[in-house]
């Protein structure tokens, strides 16, 4: 289905849609290219899935290009990803060479598009070297870091910094994620699409079908964590927390996630989780295909509590999704989760499986508060974290990149 901006009017209101169209007037026909490394799986692909068509709907000549890589390349970029988040992940000289070689090969394909673009947005580290390769660029190049790079593993940062320092600007999801760079660093939190399969309203019958499909008991509380099978999402800690809760009250747990084509570590983590959950009928480990968003949506809506017990996190869009469905979220006290989960307002921040167990019990005990939190959470997302807000900030950034003079305020 092709999406249009006007489809969101019923959710965010006509003034917000009108504002976006006004803001886009001065950007008509501008060539904007987004580049990342996967078309499906993970938060970046999800964002680009709606952002590019909506930019086109506003008259911007936006396109989305995906670089192609080998297994070796994705192993290196996974190490870069881990290293940027502070995990010691040494990369050999050959690894860095592979990283560059794959970008060189992709650049040859993308050269005409990148050279002509007025704004190029490079998402995450995988395609970062494209800037250095594009000697005849005409436009402004912006590096969009989606993860927390505030305390990177130094050897990895030393290897990557020469590729990102030359950009005209960078964007981070939170101020705490940024790392000093010699150009302006803008803060644009991500957002969710309320009409996507993952977030749209679902019929009761569809929820019941999903409940039956996975053998979930409607009479016992359900906690759901949706995320890639990744060490930083701490799925084993979630299992431990739920087992602690079950010493006093019944509980079902769903750990649901898909694989992403740029995440080779996922399989090993999934095996570990499966082994831990083996033989436990109330722990459901679900590896869902990348396009099974309606199932994810249904699981989140069936949940009593959403959990996202990450030990490292970018912004944590699964938290945003949970809040949009009116659920309290128990989240790890890290990254973007800190921004979204405010104790007693939208859920609880925790640091350990014990802490998570305590807050699950607390919420299961306080039904009224759970309901109140859910209502409030949904309105916070409507005001601040739907895609219309993020689009507005990108349009503002394009104006700044193309005609800003560094002044605090300017008219367009």
């Amino acid at each position, binding site marked *: 289905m092709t999406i249009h901006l006007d489809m969101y009017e019923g959710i965010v209101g*006509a*003034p*917000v849609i*009108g*504002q976006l169209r*006004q*803001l886009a*007037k*001065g950007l008509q026909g501008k060539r904007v290219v987004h580049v990342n490394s996967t078309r499906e799986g993970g938060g970046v692909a999800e964002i680009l899935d709606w952002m590019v068509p909506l930019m086109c709907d506003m008259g911007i000549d936006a396109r989305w290009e995906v670089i192609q890589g080998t297994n070796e390349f994705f192993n290196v970029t996974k190490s870069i990803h881990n290293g940027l988040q502070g995990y010691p992940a040494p990369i050999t000289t050959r690894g860095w060479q592979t990283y560059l070689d794959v970008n060189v090969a992709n650049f040859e394909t993308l050269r005409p598009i990148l050279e002509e673009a007025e704004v190029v947005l490079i998402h995450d580290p995988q395609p970062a070297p494209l800037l250095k390769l594009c000697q005849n660029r005409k436009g402004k190049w912006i590096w969009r870091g989606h993860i927390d790079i505030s305390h990177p593993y130094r050897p990895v940062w030393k290897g990557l910094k020469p590729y990102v320092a030359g950009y005209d600007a960078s964007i981070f999801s939170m*101020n*705490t994620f*940024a790392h*000093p760079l010699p150009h*302006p*660093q*803008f*803060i*644009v*939190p991500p957002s969710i699409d309320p009409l996507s399969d993952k977030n749209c309203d679902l019929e009761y019958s569809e929820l019941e079908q999903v409940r039956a499909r996975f053998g979930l008991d409607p009479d016992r509380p359900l906690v759901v964590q949706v995320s890639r099978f990744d060490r930083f999402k701490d799925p084993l800690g979630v299992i431990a927390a739920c087992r602690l809760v079950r010493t006093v009250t019944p509980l079902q747990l769903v750990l649901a996630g898909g694989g992403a084509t740029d995440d080779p570590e996922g399989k090993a983590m999934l095996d570990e989780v499966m082994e831990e959950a083996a033989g436990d009928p109330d722990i459901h480990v679900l590896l869902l295909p990348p396009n099974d968003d309606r199932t994810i949506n249904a699981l989140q809506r069936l949940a009593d509590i959403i959990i996202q017990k990450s030990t490292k996190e970018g912004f944590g869009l699964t938290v945003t999704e949970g809040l949009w469905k009116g659920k309290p979220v128990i989240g790890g006290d890290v990254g973007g989760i800190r*921004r*979204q*989960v*405010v104790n007693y*307002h*939208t859920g609880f921040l925790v640091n350990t499986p014990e802490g998570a167990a305590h807050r699950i019990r607390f919420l299961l005990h306080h039904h009224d508060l759970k309901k109140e939190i859910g209502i409030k959470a949904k309105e*916070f997302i409507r*005001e*601040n*974290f739907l895609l219309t*807000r993020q689009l*507005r*900030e990108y*349009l*503002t*950034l394009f*104006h*700044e990149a193309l005609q*800003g003079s560094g*002044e*605090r*305020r*300017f*008219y*367009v």
Partner: protein
Amino acid sequence: MKNFRIYDCALLARTSGLPTALNLRELRERLASCSSNVIYHHFCETPMVASFDNPDYRNDVAVWIKLHLGDRVLAERIGIIDPYSFFDMEELRVLTLDLIDERLSELPFVPSAPPGSEFYFMESTTVVFDTGRAIEHPRDLASSILTMTGSSIYFHFLEARRRHPENIDDFSAWLLDSPEEFKMEVNALHSIDFTFFTLSELRNELAKLLSHAGGIP
């Protein structure tokens, strides 16, 4: 009487390049040396920044002092400041530094935040644009306000105070410019304590008060 042209704005936050502050003395040092844009951002632009809760105070400095330094006394003193009443951010800077100095002289120690709760000094870029819409007569003001975005309300009702030497909002300035008498409407606008409203709440409050002042049920 000229039409009231409706403007809107969009804000984009950016890092200031200043190091973070982990204690009250570092906060003071950075506030003393930062650009006025940083002061403006943390005191005046907070209603434009996305939030997941309703903080006690409407400026980031007071919120941080309360939540992360745990100094409720200083938070109360700084939290009550009306930043829009300062035409010059330098005056606001001087007052804030005075309050911090006073508090440092009262305390036997320097309050510190735990690691991970540092104060990040930010600033922003704001793009202002004409919506292409205009209000022809003051009697249409209330209904028009209801169709404005939160950022348009911010631009015309809060940010405007720093553009007018008389420290008034754009709506009041327009009404005062009218050959007709709109004293009740202007008084209604002046009576709003906007500190505790979100922008969407403020929009509804403005429309309600203007409707009542104009005798429209």
